[in-house]
Protein backbone atom coordinates (compact mmCIF):
# COMPACT_ATOMS: atom_id res chain seq x y z
CA UNK A 1 0.00 0.00 0.00
CA UNK A 2 1.04 3.62 -0.30
CA UNK A 3 3.59 4.88 2.23
CA UNK A 4 0.98 7.15 3.85
CA UNK A 5 -1.04 4.68 5.91
CA UNK A 6 1.93 2.47 6.65
CA UNK A 7 3.60 5.50 8.21
CA UNK A 8 0.73 5.67 10.76
CA UNK A 9 2.41 6.14 14.11
CA UNK A 10 5.76 7.11 12.56
CA UNK A 11 7.31 10.37 13.66
CA UNK A 12 5.95 12.71 10.90
CA UNK A 13 9.06 14.90 10.87
CA UNK A 14 11.36 11.90 10.36
CA UNK A 15 8.99 10.34 7.83
CA UNK A 16 8.94 13.48 5.69
CA UNK A 17 12.67 14.11 6.05
CA UNK A 18 13.30 10.61 4.69
CA UNK A 19 10.82 10.76 1.82
CA UNK A 20 11.24 14.39 0.70
CA UNK A 21 14.99 14.83 0.86
CA UNK A 22 15.98 16.70 -2.31
CA UNK A 23 14.70 19.74 -4.25
CA UNK A 24 13.38 17.32 -6.91
CA UNK A 25 11.42 15.48 -4.21
CA UNK A 26 9.90 18.77 -2.99
CA UNK A 27 8.92 19.80 -6.51
CA UNK A 28 7.47 16.39 -7.36
CA UNK A 29 5.43 16.37 -4.14
CA UNK A 30 4.29 19.97 -4.58
CA UNK A 31 3.14 19.29 -8.13
CA UNK A 32 1.34 16.07 -7.21
CA UNK A 33 -0.34 17.81 -4.27
CA UNK A 34 -1.66 20.71 -6.33
CA UNK A 35 -2.76 18.69 -9.35
CA UNK A 36 -4.51 16.07 -7.20
CA UNK A 37 -6.21 18.85 -5.21
CA UNK A 38 -7.39 20.47 -8.46
CA UNK A 39 -8.69 17.14 -9.78
CA UNK A 40 -10.59 16.42 -6.57
CA UNK A 41 -12.14 19.91 -6.48
CA UNK A 42 -13.24 19.41 -10.11
CA UNK A 43 -14.83 16.09 -9.15
CA UNK A 44 -16.56 17.67 -6.16
CA UNK A 45 -17.86 20.53 -8.32
CA UNK A 46 -19.26 17.95 -10.77
CA UNK A 47 -20.85 15.99 -7.92
CA UNK A 48 -22.59 19.09 -6.59
CA UNK A 49 -23.74 20.11 -10.06
CA UNK A 50 -25.21 16.64 -10.67
CA UNK A 51 -26.96 16.83 -7.29
CA UNK A 52 -28.44 20.23 -8.05
CA UNK A 53 -26.40 22.14 -5.50
CA UNK A 54 -25.05 25.02 -7.65
CA UNK A 55 -23.80 27.31 -4.85
CA UNK A 56 -21.55 24.63 -3.40
CA UNK A 57 -20.49 23.56 -6.90
CA UNK A 58 -19.35 27.14 -7.49
CA UNK A 59 -17.08 27.10 -4.42
CA UNK A 60 -15.46 23.83 -5.48
CA UNK A 61 -15.12 25.05 -9.04
CA UNK A 62 -13.38 28.22 -7.89
CA UNK A 63 -10.98 26.20 -5.72
CA UNK A 64 -10.29 23.86 -8.66
CA UNK A 65 -9.31 26.80 -10.85
CA UNK A 66 -6.98 28.24 -8.20
CA UNK A 67 -5.27 24.89 -7.62
CA UNK A 68 -4.96 24.28 -11.35
CA UNK A 69 -3.07 27.55 -11.83
CA UNK A 70 -0.72 26.50 -9.06
CA UNK A 71 -0.38 22.99 -10.52
CA UNK A 72 0.44 24.35 -14.01
CA UNK A 73 3.14 26.60 -12.56
CA UNK A 74 4.67 23.67 -10.73
CA UNK A 75 4.44 21.45 -13.83
CA UNK A 76 6.51 24.06 -15.68
CA UNK A 77 9.09 24.13 -12.86
CA UNK A 78 9.27 20.31 -12.90
CA UNK A 79 9.72 20.28 -16.68
CA UNK A 80 12.50 22.87 -16.49
CA UNK A 81 14.43 20.77 -13.97
CA UNK A 82 13.59 17.43 -15.60
CA UNK A 83 11.96 16.20 -12.41
CA UNK A 84 11.14 12.52 -12.49
CA UNK A 85 7.48 11.59 -12.51
CA UNK A 86 6.59 8.81 -10.08
CA UNK A 87 3.71 6.41 -9.50
CA UNK A 88 1.04 7.91 -7.21
CA UNK A 89 1.78 5.38 -4.46
CA UNK A 90 5.41 6.44 -4.17
CA UNK A 91 4.76 9.87 -2.71
CA UNK A 92 5.50 10.22 0.96
CA UNK A 93 2.39 11.86 2.45
CA UNK A 94 1.47 11.74 6.11
CA UNK A 95 -2.03 10.52 5.23
CA UNK A 96 -3.15 8.21 2.45
CA UNK A 97 -3.69 11.19 0.16
CA UNK A 98 -1.86 14.48 -0.38
CA UNK A 99 -2.63 17.08 2.32
CA UNK A 100 -4.50 19.51 0.06
CA UNK A 101 -6.82 16.83 -1.32
CA UNK A 102 -10.36 16.75 0.12
CA UNK A 103 -11.10 13.19 1.27
CA UNK A 104 -13.96 11.79 -0.84
CA UNK A 105 -16.05 10.89 2.20
CA UNK A 106 -16.17 14.54 3.37
CA UNK A 107 -18.66 15.43 0.66
CA UNK A 108 -22.43 15.43 1.07
CA UNK A 109 -25.00 16.33 -1.57
CA UNK A 110 -26.68 18.86 0.74
CA UNK A 111 -23.52 20.50 2.04
CA UNK A 112 -23.64 24.30 1.97
CA UNK A 113 -21.24 26.70 0.27
CA UNK A 114 -19.84 27.91 3.62
CA UNK A 115 -19.27 24.29 4.66
CA UNK A 116 -17.35 23.77 1.40
CA UNK A 117 -15.24 26.83 2.21
CA UNK A 118 -14.51 25.43 5.64
CA UNK A 119 -13.25 22.23 4.00
CA UNK A 120 -11.10 24.27 1.63
CA UNK A 121 -9.60 26.17 4.57
CA UNK A 122 -8.82 22.91 6.31
CA UNK A 123 -7.08 21.65 3.15
CA UNK A 124 -4.95 24.79 2.80
CA UNK A 125 -3.93 24.53 6.44
CA UNK A 126 -2.93 20.89 5.95
CA UNK A 127 -0.84 21.87 2.94
CA UNK A 128 0.88 24.54 5.02
CA UNK A 129 1.44 22.03 7.82
CA UNK A 130 3.07 19.67 5.32
CA UNK A 131 5.76 22.24 4.47
CA UNK A 132 6.12 23.30 8.10
CA UNK A 133 6.68 19.66 9.10
CA UNK A 134 9.26 19.36 6.36
CA UNK A 135 11.00 22.52 7.59
CA UNK A 136 10.94 21.24 11.17
CA UNK A 137 13.21 18.39 10.09
CA UNK A 138 16.20 20.74 9.44
CA UNK A 139 16.37 19.95 5.72
CA UNK A 140 19.36 20.88 3.51
CA UNK A 141 19.43 24.53 2.33
CA UNK A 142 18.11 23.87 -1.19
CA UNK A 143 15.15 21.88 0.21
CA UNK A 144 14.55 24.56 2.86
CA UNK A 145 14.45 27.34 0.25
CA UNK A 146 11.77 25.59 -1.81
CA UNK A 147 9.76 24.49 1.23
CA UNK A 148 9.77 28.08 2.55
CA UNK A 149 8.63 29.42 -0.82
CA UNK A 150 5.76 26.92 -1.01
CA UNK A 151 4.81 27.42 2.64
CA UNK A 152 4.53 31.18 1.96
CA UNK A 153 2.18 30.45 -0.96
CA UNK A 154 0.03 28.20 1.20
CA UNK A 155 -0.11 30.94 3.85
CA UNK A 156 -1.47 33.29 1.18
CA UNK A 157 -4.11 30.70 0.25
CA UNK A 158 -5.10 30.31 3.88
CA UNK A 159 -5.61 34.09 4.20
CA UNK A 160 -7.55 34.22 0.93
CA UNK A 161 -10.01 31.52 2.03
CA UNK A 162 -10.26 33.12 5.48
CA UNK A 163 -11.17 36.41 3.78
CA UNK A 164 -13.99 34.70 1.88
CA UNK A 165 -15.15 33.04 5.06
CA UNK A 166 -15.43 36.38 6.87
CA UNK A 167 -18.90 36.70 5.31
CA UNK A 168 -19.98 33.60 7.22
CA UNK A 169 -19.03 34.08 10.88
CA UNK A 170 -21.25 31.21 12.14
CA UNK A 171 -21.06 28.19 9.89
CA UNK A 172 -23.62 25.58 10.89
CA UNK A 173 -21.69 22.26 11.00
CA UNK A 174 -24.86 20.22 10.40
CA UNK A 175 -25.89 19.03 6.97
CA UNK A 176 -29.39 20.38 6.20
CA UNK A 177 -32.12 17.78 6.58
CA UNK A 178 -33.48 16.04 3.49
CA UNK A 179 -37.29 15.97 3.62
CA UNK A 180 -37.20 13.04 1.17
CA UNK A 181 -34.48 10.92 2.76
CA UNK A 182 -33.45 7.75 0.84
CA UNK A 183 -33.13 5.64 3.98
CA UNK A 184 -36.10 3.52 5.09
CA UNK A 185 -36.74 4.02 8.84
Amino acid at each position, binding site marked *: *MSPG*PSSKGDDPIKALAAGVASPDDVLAHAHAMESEAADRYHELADQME*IHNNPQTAEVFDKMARIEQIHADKLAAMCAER*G*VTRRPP*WEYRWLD*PEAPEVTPV*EEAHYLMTAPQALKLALHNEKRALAFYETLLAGSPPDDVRALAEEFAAEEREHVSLVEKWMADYPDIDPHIPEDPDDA*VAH
Partner: protein
Amino acid sequence: MTAESAPAFAAKDFKSDIKPVWCPGCGDYSVLSSVTKALAELQTPPEDVAVVSGIGCSSRIPAYTNCYGFHGVHGRALPLAIGLKVSRPDLTVIVTGGDGDGYSIGGNHFLHACRRNVDMTYIVMDNQVYGMTKGQPSPTTEPDWESGLVPGGTRIRPFMPLVVALASGANFIARGFSGDPNGTAQLIAEAIRHPGFSFVEVLSPCVTFRPEQRNWKHETHPAPVEATNDRGRAARRLATDDGFNTGVLFYDNRAPYMPPVDANLTDVQQFDREFAV
Protein backbone atom coordinates in the same frame (compact mmCIF):
# COMPACT_ATOMS: atom_id res chain seq x y z
CA MET B 1 10.68 9.04 -16.80
CA THR B 2 11.39 12.75 -17.07
CA ALA B 3 8.94 15.54 -17.81
CA GLU B 4 10.47 15.78 -21.31
CA SER B 5 9.56 12.18 -22.04
CA ALA B 6 6.06 12.61 -20.63
CA PRO B 7 4.03 9.39 -20.66
CA ALA B 8 1.45 9.00 -23.40
CA PHE B 9 -1.48 8.50 -21.04
CA ALA B 10 -2.40 10.25 -17.81
CA ALA B 11 -5.12 9.05 -15.42
CA LYS B 12 -7.47 11.65 -16.93
CA ASP B 13 -7.18 9.98 -20.34
CA PHE B 14 -8.98 6.94 -18.94
CA LYS B 15 -11.97 8.96 -17.67
CA SER B 16 -14.99 9.62 -19.85
CA ASP B 17 -16.89 12.92 -20.05
CA ILE B 18 -19.85 11.41 -18.21
CA LYS B 19 -20.20 12.81 -14.72
CA PRO B 20 -20.80 10.07 -12.12
CA VAL B 21 -24.19 10.10 -10.39
CA TRP B 22 -22.99 8.39 -7.22
CA CYS B 23 -23.88 10.03 -3.90
CA PRO B 24 -21.19 12.53 -2.96
CA GLY B 25 -19.04 10.80 -0.35
CA CYS B 26 -19.40 7.32 -1.95
CA GLY B 27 -16.19 5.27 -1.92
CA ASP B 28 -16.75 4.29 -5.54
CA TYR B 29 -15.44 7.70 -6.69
CA SER B 30 -12.05 6.77 -5.25
CA VAL B 31 -12.11 3.31 -6.80
CA LEU B 32 -12.73 4.89 -10.21
CA SER B 33 -9.75 7.12 -9.58
CA SER B 34 -7.63 4.10 -8.53
CA VAL B 35 -8.55 2.23 -11.72
CA THR B 36 -7.57 5.17 -13.93
CA LYS B 37 -4.34 5.76 -11.99
CA ALA B 38 -3.41 2.09 -12.32
CA LEU B 39 -4.06 2.13 -16.06
CA ALA B 40 -2.00 5.30 -16.43
CA GLU B 41 0.91 3.59 -14.68
CA LEU B 42 0.62 0.58 -16.95
CA GLN B 43 0.36 2.87 -20.00
CA THR B 44 -2.13 0.52 -21.62
CA PRO B 45 -3.96 2.48 -24.34
CA PRO B 46 -7.67 2.93 -23.43
CA GLU B 47 -8.71 1.13 -26.61
CA ASP B 48 -6.84 -1.98 -25.42
CA VAL B 49 -8.84 -2.17 -22.19
CA ALA B 50 -12.37 -3.47 -21.64
CA VAL B 51 -14.22 -2.79 -18.41
CA VAL B 52 -17.13 -5.17 -17.85
CA SER B 53 -19.69 -4.91 -15.05
CA GLY B 54 -23.00 -6.18 -13.76
CA ILE B 55 -25.65 -4.00 -12.10
CA GLY B 56 -25.41 -1.83 -9.01
CA CYS B 57 -23.99 1.58 -8.11
CA SER B 58 -20.45 0.17 -8.31
CA SER B 59 -21.23 -1.47 -11.64
CA ARG B 60 -21.62 1.96 -13.25
CA ILE B 61 -17.84 2.29 -13.59
CA PRO B 62 -17.56 1.28 -17.28
CA ALA B 63 -19.56 4.39 -18.30
CA TYR B 64 -17.13 6.61 -16.44
CA THR B 65 -14.04 5.26 -18.15
CA ASN B 66 -12.85 5.95 -21.63
CA CYS B 67 -12.10 2.28 -22.31
CA TYR B 68 -14.37 -0.20 -24.02
CA GLY B 69 -17.17 -1.00 -21.61
CA PHE B 70 -19.99 -3.46 -21.13
CA HIS B 71 -22.60 -2.71 -18.48
CA GLY B 72 -24.05 -6.19 -18.37
CA VAL B 73 -26.68 -8.16 -16.53
CA HIS B 74 -26.89 -8.32 -12.73
CA GLY B 75 -24.42 -10.97 -11.49
CA ARG B 76 -23.27 -11.93 -14.97
CA ALA B 77 -20.24 -9.70 -15.47
CA LEU B 78 -17.75 -12.55 -15.04
CA PRO B 79 -19.11 -14.92 -17.72
CA LEU B 80 -19.38 -11.96 -20.10
CA ALA B 81 -15.80 -11.01 -19.37
CA ILE B 82 -14.56 -14.59 -19.74
CA GLY B 83 -16.21 -14.81 -23.16
CA LEU B 84 -14.59 -11.55 -24.14
CA LYS B 85 -11.12 -12.47 -22.91
CA VAL B 86 -10.99 -15.89 -24.56
CA SER B 87 -12.08 -14.41 -27.88
CA ARG B 88 -9.93 -11.28 -27.61
CA PRO B 89 -6.90 -12.31 -25.53
CA ASP B 90 -5.11 -9.15 -26.64
CA LEU B 91 -7.43 -6.99 -24.47
CA THR B 92 -6.80 -6.16 -20.83
CA VAL B 93 -10.06 -7.19 -19.19
CA ILE B 94 -11.19 -5.61 -15.93
CA VAL B 95 -14.42 -6.62 -14.23
CA THR B 96 -16.05 -4.32 -11.68
CA GLY B 97 -19.06 -4.68 -9.43
CA GLY B 98 -20.50 -4.83 -5.96
CA ASP B 99 -20.81 -7.44 -3.23
CA GLY B 100 -24.47 -8.03 -4.13
CA ASP B 101 -23.69 -8.42 -7.80
CA GLY B 102 -20.62 -10.62 -7.28
CA TYR B 103 -21.34 -12.71 -4.20
CA SER B 104 -25.11 -13.06 -4.23
CA ILE B 105 -26.72 -13.39 -7.65
CA GLY B 106 -23.28 -13.79 -9.24
CA GLY B 107 -21.81 -16.03 -6.54
CA ASN B 108 -21.79 -19.15 -8.68
CA HIS B 109 -19.91 -17.35 -11.47
CA PHE B 110 -17.43 -16.04 -8.91
CA LEU B 111 -16.47 -19.59 -7.83
CA HIS B 112 -16.00 -20.80 -11.37
CA ALA B 113 -14.13 -17.71 -12.54
CA CYS B 114 -11.61 -18.28 -9.73
CA ARG B 115 -11.40 -21.94 -10.68
CA ARG B 116 -11.11 -21.32 -14.41
CA ASN B 117 -8.32 -18.75 -13.98
CA VAL B 118 -8.78 -16.74 -17.16
CA ASP B 119 -6.38 -13.77 -17.25
CA MET B 120 -8.41 -10.83 -15.94
CA THR B 121 -8.82 -8.61 -12.90
CA TYR B 122 -11.99 -8.64 -10.83
CA ILE B 123 -12.55 -5.61 -8.58
CA VAL B 124 -15.39 -5.87 -6.08
CA MET B 125 -16.43 -2.68 -4.30
CA ASP B 126 -17.67 -4.19 -1.06
CA ASN B 127 -19.96 -1.91 0.97
CA GLN B 128 -21.80 -4.76 2.67
CA VAL B 129 -25.14 -3.57 1.33
CA TYR B 130 -27.22 -3.31 -1.85
CA GLY B 131 -26.75 0.41 -2.47
CA MET B 132 -28.60 0.80 -5.74
CA THR B 133 -31.80 -0.82 -4.54
CA LYS B 134 -31.84 1.23 -1.33
CA GLY B 135 -30.11 -0.62 1.42
CA GLN B 136 -31.00 -4.31 1.61
CA PRO B 137 -28.39 -6.54 3.30
CA SER B 138 -25.92 -8.35 1.06
CA PRO B 139 -23.96 -11.59 1.61
CA THR B 140 -21.18 -9.68 3.40
CA THR B 141 -23.49 -7.75 5.75
CA GLU B 142 -22.89 -8.37 9.44
CA PRO B 143 -25.63 -10.56 10.99
CA ASP B 144 -26.59 -7.92 13.55
CA TRP B 145 -26.81 -4.94 11.19
CA GLU B 146 -30.29 -3.54 11.60
CA SER B 147 -32.21 -1.12 9.43
CA GLY B 148 -35.84 -0.37 8.68
CA LEU B 149 -35.61 -3.09 6.03
CA VAL B 150 -34.02 -5.73 8.30
CA PRO B 151 -35.41 -5.37 11.82
CA GLY B 152 -33.24 -7.48 14.11
CA GLY B 153 -30.60 -8.01 11.40
CA THR B 154 -30.24 -11.00 9.10
CA ARG B 155 -28.72 -13.25 11.79
CA ILE B 156 -26.89 -15.00 8.92
CA ARG B 157 -23.17 -15.64 8.93
CA PRO B 158 -21.45 -13.33 6.38
CA PHE B 159 -19.85 -14.68 3.21
CA MET B 160 -16.02 -14.60 3.25
CA PRO B 161 -15.06 -13.58 -0.27
CA LEU B 162 -11.28 -13.88 0.10
CA VAL B 163 -11.48 -17.33 1.67
CA VAL B 164 -13.88 -18.47 -1.05
CA ALA B 165 -11.63 -17.01 -3.77
CA LEU B 166 -8.63 -18.86 -2.32
CA ALA B 167 -10.49 -22.16 -2.00
CA SER B 168 -11.79 -21.81 -5.56
CA GLY B 169 -8.37 -21.23 -7.08
CA ALA B 170 -7.91 -17.47 -7.63
CA ASN B 171 -4.36 -16.69 -8.72
CA PHE B 172 -3.98 -13.36 -6.90
CA ILE B 173 -5.92 -12.02 -3.92
CA ALA B 174 -5.71 -8.52 -2.49
CA ARG B 175 -7.76 -6.21 -0.32
CA GLY B 176 -7.81 -2.43 -0.68
CA PHE B 177 -9.64 0.47 0.88
CA SER B 178 -11.20 3.29 -1.13
CA GLY B 179 -9.92 5.83 1.41
CA ASP B 180 -6.41 5.00 0.20
CA PRO B 181 -6.86 5.47 -3.56
CA ASN B 182 -3.14 5.50 -4.28
CA GLY B 183 -2.51 2.25 -2.41
CA THR B 184 -5.53 0.71 -4.14
CA ALA B 185 -4.22 1.88 -7.53
CA GLN B 186 -1.00 0.02 -6.78
CA LEU B 187 -2.92 -3.17 -5.93
CA ILE B 188 -4.96 -2.88 -9.12
CA ALA B 189 -1.84 -2.34 -11.23
CA GLU B 190 -0.23 -5.42 -9.64
CA ALA B 191 -3.41 -7.42 -10.15
CA ILE B 192 -3.56 -6.51 -13.83
CA ARG B 193 0.11 -7.39 -14.31
CA HIS B 194 -0.32 -10.74 -12.57
CA PRO B 195 -1.31 -13.49 -15.03
CA GLY B 196 -4.55 -15.39 -14.44
CA PHE B 197 -7.61 -14.48 -12.39
CA SER B 198 -6.78 -11.66 -10.00
CA PHE B 199 -9.29 -10.71 -7.34
CA VAL B 200 -9.17 -7.32 -5.61
CA GLU B 201 -11.74 -6.72 -2.93
CA VAL B 202 -12.00 -2.99 -2.15
CA LEU B 203 -13.78 -1.84 1.00
CA SER B 204 -15.77 1.05 -0.41
CA PRO B 205 -18.20 2.78 1.97
CA CYS B 206 -21.83 3.37 1.06
CA VAL B 207 -22.24 6.67 2.90
CA THR B 208 -25.99 6.75 2.30
CA PHE B 209 -27.11 3.37 3.64
CA ARG B 210 -24.09 2.53 5.80
CA PRO B 211 -22.86 5.96 7.02
CA GLU B 212 -21.00 4.24 9.87
CA GLN B 213 -18.58 2.88 7.23
CA ARG B 214 -16.95 6.33 7.19
CA ASN B 215 -15.17 4.91 10.23
CA TRP B 216 -13.37 2.33 8.06
CA LYS B 217 -10.56 4.84 7.65
CA HIS B 218 -9.68 4.17 11.29
CA GLU B 219 -10.13 0.41 11.03
CA THR B 220 -8.22 -0.52 7.88
CA HIS B 221 -4.49 -1.16 8.18
CA PRO B 222 -1.75 -2.66 6.03
CA ALA B 223 -1.46 -6.44 6.50
CA PRO B 224 1.28 -7.07 9.05
CA VAL B 225 2.85 -9.86 6.98
CA GLU B 226 4.15 -10.17 3.42
CA ALA B 227 1.97 -11.80 0.75
CA THR B 228 2.35 -15.57 0.62
CA ASN B 229 2.19 -18.04 -2.26
CA ASP B 230 1.47 -20.89 0.12
CA ARG B 231 -2.25 -21.74 -0.10
CA GLY B 232 -2.33 -23.42 3.32
CA ARG B 233 -0.74 -20.47 5.06
CA ALA B 234 -2.99 -18.06 3.16
CA ALA B 235 -6.06 -20.10 4.17
CA ARG B 236 -5.16 -19.80 7.84
CA ARG B 237 -4.51 -16.08 7.53
CA LEU B 238 -7.60 -15.25 5.51
CA ALA B 239 -9.90 -17.33 7.68
CA THR B 240 -8.77 -15.52 10.80
CA ASP B 241 -8.10 -12.03 9.50
CA ASP B 242 -10.14 -9.13 10.87
CA GLY B 243 -11.51 -8.12 7.47
CA PHE B 244 -9.49 -4.89 7.49
CA ASN B 245 -6.01 -6.09 6.47
CA THR B 246 -5.04 -4.40 3.21
CA GLY B 247 -2.41 -5.28 0.62
CA VAL B 248 -1.62 -8.27 -1.56
CA LEU B 249 -2.54 -11.29 0.55
CA PHE B 250 -1.90 -14.22 -1.77
CA TYR B 251 -0.44 -14.96 -5.21
CA ASP B 252 0.06 -18.14 -7.20
CA ASN B 253 1.54 -18.98 -10.58
CA ARG B 254 -1.06 -21.28 -12.10
CA ALA B 255 -1.04 -20.97 -15.86
CA PRO B 256 -4.04 -18.94 -17.07
CA TYR B 257 -6.74 -20.87 -18.86
CA MET B 258 -7.08 -20.33 -22.60
CA PRO B 259 -9.30 -22.65 -24.63
CA PRO B 260 -7.61 -24.15 -27.68
CA VAL B 261 -8.41 -21.96 -30.66
CA ASP B 262 -9.91 -23.85 -33.62
CA ALA B 263 -7.73 -22.67 -36.50
CA ASN B 264 -10.50 -23.52 -38.97
CA LEU B 265 -13.04 -21.38 -37.20
CA THR B 266 -12.03 -18.03 -38.65
CA ASP B 267 -15.38 -17.24 -40.14
CA VAL B 268 -17.99 -16.10 -37.63
CA GLN B 269 -20.77 -16.76 -40.12
CA GLN B 270 -19.60 -20.35 -40.43
CA PHE B 271 -19.80 -20.60 -36.64
CA ASP B 272 -23.31 -19.14 -36.80
CA ARG B 273 -24.35 -21.70 -39.39
CA GLU B 274 -23.24 -24.51 -37.09
CA PHE B 275 -25.77 -23.30 -34.54
CA ALA B 276 -28.61 -22.79 -37.01
CA VAL B 277 -31.76 -24.75 -36.12
